[in-house]
């Protein structure tokens, strides 16, 4: 499926901003293999606006995919914004006339998304200490949203996640003792069931836009949203793989557990014990380890050709050392 995205964006610019409008500076940003993200600007009679296009470039199987459709993502963005959680405002859900396939356009929110810069650039020194608390507040708001019915979100608790990822691990054929230990240990220590809430599903440093003056400005990438344990989102942002060189700051490499949980409670979230967050952090490292194996497999089977895919298989060992650290500290 070959689409001339810049040309299609120019036609879309006319549709959105009127005759004479055009799309400028369309550029594909570094992104996943099945989902493309493009930055562009619409220059029209009313001025210039920075936009982001998200479009699916690979096949999509809504039954078996962990991801939602982009239409569902669009519905979610609007629902969470209504509850005061910052997501980039939706501008347009694409249809057939746009010739872009499954896609949507949001406004581009100013700020930094690169985790390493957020964690080390002096520009963010002033807001960095606020971020963990802001993340907690935003997660509490997201978790309070009634999921939009048209989004058809799936529900998954820890047992379901362990089943899914253990199956993927077995299918990969890899033999990794630390992953075996983690699967067994996490299965033997399942947290008590609790009422599922709306989760972002990929809430981590890298999917946050941080403004050097205000701090957390927007949360991106809603495609893994589902219903589940609130501690899943809280634990995911603590996974060491996205602390970007700052393992001493457990929340995203910028903050502490206490601030995350205090922010969560202050915005109306039901208190979550740290142990439950650590459990999901461990499950998060385990999931990321299996995802790395899956990405390697997608190259090994010929489904994906990018050099990025096999190399990501070499990131499994990072999740193994992180898992050992959590298991040694005790769960």
């Amino acid at each position, binding site marked *: 499926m070959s689409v001339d995205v810049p040309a299609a964006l120019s036609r879309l610019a006319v549709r959105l901003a009127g005759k004479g409008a055009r799309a400028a500076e369309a550029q594909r940003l570094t992104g996943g293999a099945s989902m493309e993200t493009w930055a562009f600007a619409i220059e029209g009679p009313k001025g210039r606006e920075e936009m982001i296009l998200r479009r699916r470039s690979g096949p999509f199987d809504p039954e078996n995919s962990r991801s939602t459709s982009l239409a569902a993502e669009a519905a979610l963005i609007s629902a969470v914004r209504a509850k005061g959680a910052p997501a980039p405002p939706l501008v347009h859900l694409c249809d057939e006339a746009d010739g872009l396939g499954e896609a949507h356009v949001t406004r581009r929110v100013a700020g930094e998304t690169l985790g390493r810069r957020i964690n080390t650039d002096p520009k963010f020194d002033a807001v960095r200490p606020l971020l963990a608390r802001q993340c907690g507040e935003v997660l509490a708001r997201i978790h309070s949203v009634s999921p939009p019915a048209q989004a058809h979100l799936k529900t998954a608790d820890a047992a379901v996640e362990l089943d899914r990822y253990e199956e993927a691990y077995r299918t990969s054929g890899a033999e990794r003792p630390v992953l075996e230990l983690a*699967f067994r240990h996490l299965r033997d220590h399942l947290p008590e069931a609790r009422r599922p809430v709306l989760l972002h599903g990929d809430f981590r440093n890298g999917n946050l836009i941080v403004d050097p003056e205000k701090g957390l400005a927007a949360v991106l990438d809603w495609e893994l949203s589902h219903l589940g344990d609130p501690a899943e989102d809280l634990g995911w942002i603590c996974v060491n793989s996205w602390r970007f060189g700052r393992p001493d700051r457990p929340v995203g490499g910028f903050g502490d557990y206490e601030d995350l949980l205090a922010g969560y409670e202050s915005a109306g979230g039901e208190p979550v014990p740290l142990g439950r967050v650590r459990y999901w952090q461990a499950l998060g490292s385990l999931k990321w380890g299996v995802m790395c194996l899956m990405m390697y497999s997608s190259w090994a089977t010929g489904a994906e050709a990018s050099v990025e895919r096999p190399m990501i298989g*070499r990131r499994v060992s990072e999740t193994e050392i992180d898992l050992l650290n959590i298991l040694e500290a005790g769960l």
Partner: protein
Amino acid sequence: MITHPKPEELTEAVGRWIEQVRPQLDPRNQFLARVAANALAAVTRELTLGDQAQAAAVERLEAILGHGGNYRGLNWELCEKLRAGEMGVATPGLLATLRGNVLDQLAIDQPSYKYEGP
């Protein structure tokens, strides 16, 4: 094996060339070129450290399992025991064994990775 050049010198040379041309590429290919250079660097480390790491892993696996064997067989046996719950976090020496093996692997895969530590 021949030594003029050694395989790790070839991977190193190609990796350096990628770094040289990388700035001339478009952003997407700059990213992929960096991944490619990282891949060659990992291969270079495996060529220089791999044999030693595997020998050390076999030694640790033999000690925890109580008998000799080759890497593949010992590693598989440990996986089976962990999966069955016959060994776990409470098994004396297990976590230290796993840590030793994982740290040697990490030194090949991603030596700059910063993990939680004392």
